[in-house]
């Protein structure tokens, strides 16, 4: 038996993690590219028609096909597409004939702002409600908090948006119904996105914190004279951190996807509404780009949580190093 070298095992773990993450991202890129193979309709004829403004002739379509490189075998096209994607070149939108890369870049900022705002709000509210749910005695207040948390996770985001518009914009006139302009227009989209995140998170915090505090080592800590705040901080939360982190990351990553609905309802020019319009018009290059960016963001958020969790837990570190 020898003492574990923390740095070496940690380094091995990070390398392993990076490799796994790259594998998942690459697999996702293959799936995203494959969309073009499943697509109904021929992208070349769609783009040719967009350019001509009317149904295109076979010669025009063939010219576009060669221009887009659609005549090459699938693996070659995948390699070209991936190389382009890495430099931000996703080809031309079938709908607008504009470069998809710059359209996505324009809209990404809006979506990231929305996600950041609702992530912070959701995590703060979720942690607070969750700790309360774990600490409060069994009773009306705790029951109400828990039921409320479950309820907001069950309400469909699109309906929640409608309800808020109905009440706060139409009935009370406190905020505008839609659009993206001043700070007041940010309130409702952020609230709609943050509520379910907070709900999911609070439930996990309440359950895992309670579970951690019921462990024998908490009893042992009491036996050696530690006070309750110290036990919660040293024995409770660190041991509950794994599930809390995973769920928080899953929720924040999920926000990226939820923006699809919220941007659509509130008429925001973000990546989510871009994706919906691309899907609605079968604009495959735009669809691929939006899917790759949103999906990649989702995966990276979750993988980062895994990384942190693994670094916290000495047992998993050793497991990975082996």
């Amino acid at each position: 038996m020898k003492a574990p070298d923390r740095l070496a095992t940690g380094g091995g773990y990070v390398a392993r993690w990076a490799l796994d993450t790259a594998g998942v991202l690459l697999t996702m890129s293959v799936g995203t590219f494959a969309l073009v193979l499943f697509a109904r309709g021929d992208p070349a004829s769609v783009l040719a028609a967009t350019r001509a403004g009317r149904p295109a002739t076979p010669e025009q379509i063939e010219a576009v096909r060669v221009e887009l490189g659609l005549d090459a075998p699938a693996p070659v096209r995948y390699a070209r597409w991936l190389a382009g994607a890495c430099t931000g070149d996703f080809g031309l939108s079938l709908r607008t004939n504009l470069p998809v890369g710059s359209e996505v870049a324009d809209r990404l900022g809006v979506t990231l702002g929305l996600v950041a705002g609702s992530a912070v709000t959701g995590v703060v509210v979720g942690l607070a409600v969750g700790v309360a749910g774990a600490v409060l005695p069994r009773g009306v207040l705790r029951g109400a908090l828990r039921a409320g948390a479950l309820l907001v996770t069950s309400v469909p985001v699109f309906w929640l948006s409608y309800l808020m518009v109905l009440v706060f914009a139409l009935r009370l006139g406190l905020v505008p119904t839609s659009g993206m302009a001043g700070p007041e227009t940010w309130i409702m989209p952020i609230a709609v996105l943050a509520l379910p995140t907070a709900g999911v998170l609070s439930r996990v915090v309440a359950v895992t914190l309670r579970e951690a505090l019921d462990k024998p080592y908490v009893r042992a800590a009491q036996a050696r004279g530690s006070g309750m705040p110290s036990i919660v901080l040293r024995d409770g939360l660190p041991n509950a951190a794994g599930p809390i982190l995973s769920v928080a990351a899953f929720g924040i990553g999920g926000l990226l996807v939820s923006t699809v609905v919220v941007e659509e309802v509130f008429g925001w020019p973000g990546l989510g509404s871009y994706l919906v319009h691309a899907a609605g018009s079968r604009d495959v290059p735009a669809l691929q780009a939006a899917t790759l960016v949103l999906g990649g963001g989702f995966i990276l958020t979750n993988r980062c949580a895994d990384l942190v969790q693994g670094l916290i837990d000495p047992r998993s570190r050793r497991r990975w190093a082996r």
Partner: protein
Amino acid sequence: MNGLLHRPGARTALIAVPLVLFAVAGGLAPLLAPADPGVGDLAASLRPPSPQHPLGTDQLGRDQLSRLLYGARISMTITAAVLAISLAIGAVVGATVGYLGGWADWVVARVIDVVVSLPGMLVALAVIGARGPGVESLVLALSLWSWAPYARIARARVAGMRGSPHMDALRLLGAGRVRIIGRHLLPPALAPCLVYASTDVGTIVLGVATLSFLGLGVAPPHAEWGQMLIEGQPFLGSAWWLAYPPGIAVTAVVFASNLLGERLASGEEAPSLLRLAFPGRIRRAARSARPAVVAEPAAVQDSVLVVRDLSVAYPGDGGLRRVAAGISYEVRRGQVLALVGETGSGKTTAALAPFGLLDPRAVVTGSAMLGARELVGPVPRERRRVGVVFQDGAAALNPLRTIGAHIDEAVRNAGRGGRRGATRRVTEELLGTAGLPDPAMVAHWFPHQLSGGMRQRAQIAMALAGEPELLVADEPTSALDVTVQAQLLDLLAGLRDELDMAMVVVSHDLAVVARLADSVAVVYAGRIVESGPLETLIKAPDHPYTRGLLDAVPRPGTAPGTRFRTMPGRSGIGPDDTAGCGFAPRCAFATPACTTERPVLEPLDPSAAHRSACLRHPSTSTTTDGTC
């Protein structure tokens, strides 16, 4: 699934009501709907609810209630299709590769990992974006990612059982592969899959509604809940009846599904944290409700711990149920008291109750004096004068903290150490005292890196941090090899002698404590039935139960095949389950009086050191004949 079916299911059934309504509405929509969902009367558009149209009409004059019912039908059909595909593919693929292992398992596990880590809604959006909307696209898009969790659950469950003794036993009995997978692996793998499915219903219903809302799911002439909302969007401000019913329907189904999944997945509610934080408050209340009778001889001089008439009860179906009653014992400086009994006898309860280390729901009454302090009642802040060693060292140590961190904290709690370096020096000293080689290195290790014996030594080091007058050890050597056990017992004996410490050791094995104890208290059915000096108890046991325990100890040197003298029946009753002696049903000496009259612990010798609770006292046969 047995556990699920046997659980009192009233509340669970109540939770499932929206799901049942959903299924009924979906199944019987053509019979229940008052009108054709697709045909409207433009003259009767946007009418509020009325007897004719209970939920009003939409902008095309179509009956909202009928559309809602048909919406349930389409939603349910898609959900059922997706669930059937996912469950079948997931469970079969997962169970099969989980059992086979090898490269197939590795590949499938990777695929599952990737699919599970994809955002489901995004996959669905992308697939529908490429294929165009429609019911088939929807089913394909949702199934494409929803099978993976089932495969993961089934695989994990089966892989966990593959190398288990249960499977070994089946293989030895001659069971073939088909029998093992079909009879013994698939059913237990399906159970958690079904629990997951109860939550998945909500996810799928929500997915269908969301995609339809975005115009990518069920196409317009059909009624679908999300579809109804988007169609009614322009009129939401004026026609409220268009905004609420579809939203409420989706929410109710998803809510019920989430709640049901949660209930099925988790067991019963854990006790409130408040009780964990303030055990004293609750105990005091319980104590005033049930005054304790203290009628015992005065404690001997230099007693470290004096326990008198201690009772422990837990709330059960019919009120409080006692698990230990009338427990009295004392421990003197430099002495080891052993509490001995079978599993469920209440020996651990008797040892830990004075220090508030039981389940927070326990109601403790009686008295326990540590020096001059009463421990039962207010929050015992004097706990730190007591060191505790638990049976399972792996569970009693926080897996995320190093051994050193545990002991540092104990040292600081005891007000020793001071600065970081100084604290660590005390820690290392303690580890050395507990007989761990190279304390500086061990302090950096995590609990899982230590052997069972080393973990127990680490616990002992931690227990010593507060320079306690008393050490309580609950089955400290039960899970260890005999050689390691002997070393630990010798360590404890050495500590007693060097530090002049008092100890309470709990064990089921008289032979183990014989190596260490100065006196012994034998616990049966929650009461002490005999106590006295070790020598006396072993050489001249009085209580038939003590004799039974002694007879069960194997002795090297007896002829091979010699039978043990055993006690009939089994332990596990509580102190209030019989009117007379708890041991009478198993006792060879029992008389009719034994089942009606409860014996008290009475002294057998002039010094009152040896006591036994038996009406017949077999060791002093003259009195036996006299009383009967």
